[in-house]
């Protein structure tokens, strides 16, 4: 009886089997990595904007408070985007001829709103309330990163559900003093003080992971 295969086939066959197993487990791993990757979450990606607005310049440079433009951030679910008037309140005086700001002036003339490209986009079924986070001592920087170092805005965090949960499960390490909430460079409270804050601020950690906290 003659051989059907060359000796090398033994090795090949075993490699094929191992490869198959690798494919199955590796595939799951890759899918997971992809789901968390900037390509999926849009984190760290800069998007073209109608006006090349620099947070770095306005926040770090001029020291304008977040609330000057995002006025409803302390009370409302929406932080609020500045109406054209807010921009023009300064830029009617300074840089009022700058070609860079032409779209703003045009918006005012034509009474046609500016259209910014959305960076932090939660799914429709996820409800986020800025006010309550501010009130409980979650600093802007926790979710938006060092905006004062962003010449052009980008999304600093993946903002996936698991990312939200990280904090909702253990807020203590991520809180700030009330007066530090809007300060970009302010430090987080040390954990034990954070735990103290949970008490004083009445933050029911064990309830922050209830589904209806974010989904309605």
């Amino acid at each position, binding site marked *: 009886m003659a051989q059907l295969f060359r000796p090398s086939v033994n090795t090949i066959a075993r490699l094929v089997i191992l490869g198959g197993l690798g494919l199955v487990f590796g595939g799951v*791993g890759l899918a*997971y990595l992809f789901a*968390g990757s900037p390509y999926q979450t849009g984190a760290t990606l800069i998007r073209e904007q109608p006006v090349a607005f620099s947070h770095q310049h306005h926040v770090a440079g001029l020291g304008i408070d977040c609330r000057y433009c995002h006025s409803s951030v302390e009370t409302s679910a929406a932080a609020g985007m500045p109406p054209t008037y807010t921009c023009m309140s300064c830029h009617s005086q300074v840089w009022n001829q700058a070609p860079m700001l032409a779209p703003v002036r045009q918006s005012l003339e034509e009474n046609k709103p500016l259209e910014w490209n959305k960076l932090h986009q939660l799914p429709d079924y996820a409800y986020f309330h800025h006010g309550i986070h501010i009130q409980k001592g979650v600093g802007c920087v926790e979710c938006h990163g060092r905006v004062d170092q962003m010449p052009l805005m980008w999304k600093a965090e993946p903002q996936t559900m698991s990312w939200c949960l990280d904090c909702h499960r253990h807020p203590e390490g991520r809180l700030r003093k009330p007066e530090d909430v809007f300060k970009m460079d302010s430090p987080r409270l040390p954990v034990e003080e954070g735990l103290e804050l949970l008490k004083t601020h009445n933050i029911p950690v064990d309830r922050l992971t209830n589904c209806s906290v974010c989904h309605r």
Partner: protein
Amino acid sequence: MAQVHSTHGHEDNGHASSEILGGHQSYTTVTDTIADVVLKRPLGKAWLFGFAISFALLMMFLFAVTNLLVRGIGIWGVNIPVGWGFDIVNFVWWIGIGHAGTLISAILLLLKQDWRTSINRFAEAMTLFAVACAGLYPLMHMGRPWLFYWLMPLPNTMALWPQFRSPLEFDVFAVSTYATVSLLFWYVGLIPDLATLRDRATNPLIKKLYAIPALGWRGSAIHWHRYRTAYLLLAGIATPLVVSVHTIVALDFTIGIIPGWHTTVFPPYFVAGAIFSGFAMVATLAIPLRSYFGLKDYITDKHLDNMAKVMLVTGLIVTYGYMIEGFMAWYGANTYERYQMLVDRPTGAYKHDWWLLILCNCVMTQLLWFKSIRNNIILLWLISLVINVGMWLERYVIVVISLHSDFLPSSWGMYHGTVWDYMTFYGTIGLFMTLMFLFVRILPAISIAEMRELVHELHERDEARTQATPPAARTV
């Protein structure tokens, strides 16, 4: 130099025959007859015809499923209150059918029932294909099937897990485990036969095709030794598995609080029912198979008789189950359950289904008490068909009737399968038959190695009977 003898297997060895092995068989004859079905026998008209029909049904199935995915679950008859219909009915039905295969190959192996040898191979195949059909339904019945992977504990950016208390989650693990184990068991059993086909095939390509899955099996004594252990252990594992799987399927209902579901008798009588329907299906398949491929010597009337007896016993267990359900409803004095069991089922909107179920599963099986009927192949075949229908009805009764009238009369409703329900159901039958037809053409429908073993065993017995001195070697 070693002169090469032209060694042919002409000399016949190890002769035997018995009521479970007709004719005068030897290693050679069993090998030839079974292997030739695959290697030599041309495609018959009947086979082509049957395959064509099955394949057509399979295509219809694909059409129905596409439509389901595009248009949504609403094309089925399901509604509120009857949230499950054909989907779960068929799921349970198929799973049940699957169980006979495992039972035959595993439990009967452990019980040293040598008559299993000639039917376990395609019984196992039947298991695989039935489970494949069953497994499709839980996927299809979801509102958003493309998210099926949420039922598996996979790493995800939502940091979420499945809900491990849910019977449906039990199902995910039970069914996938069952499918995997059955496949392994079946394949392990196939390895020596693949080697046989490899060595008998003449066409080099076909030789290679069988050689690859044969993994270079060479029948080494040491290999056989480990092989036997592994095979026996698999059988030992599969036995509790098969019981657990249908118990878990029963939990889908018993964990629910719906009157007609919430009853402790389900797990045992579901298992019995599974064996019941499974053996019916084996008979339904084996009878035509053996006559068409001329395997009457291997699947003898004795086999059919045994199967009929199993059907009778399990049929009686199932009947007992029905009676207990009714009795407990009455004895438990639970208004809702009483209404469900004693009023709605026998006299309600679905009474016809219920009475037909009783006729098929309880009345018809009583015929099997009579040897004459058990030995009348045609009658036996018809009865096995009736049982298949009856067991489908049983699941229909459990799923639909229980749901359509539960606690609040205000929310009672009716359910009827739509054309799409039927297309999907017949479609899976098409899938099952297609796979079966391919199987009997491509792989030995009877385990050749185990038949040789049987021949050897019987041969030894003969000798033991003739010779005073015990043989030097005994087989396991």
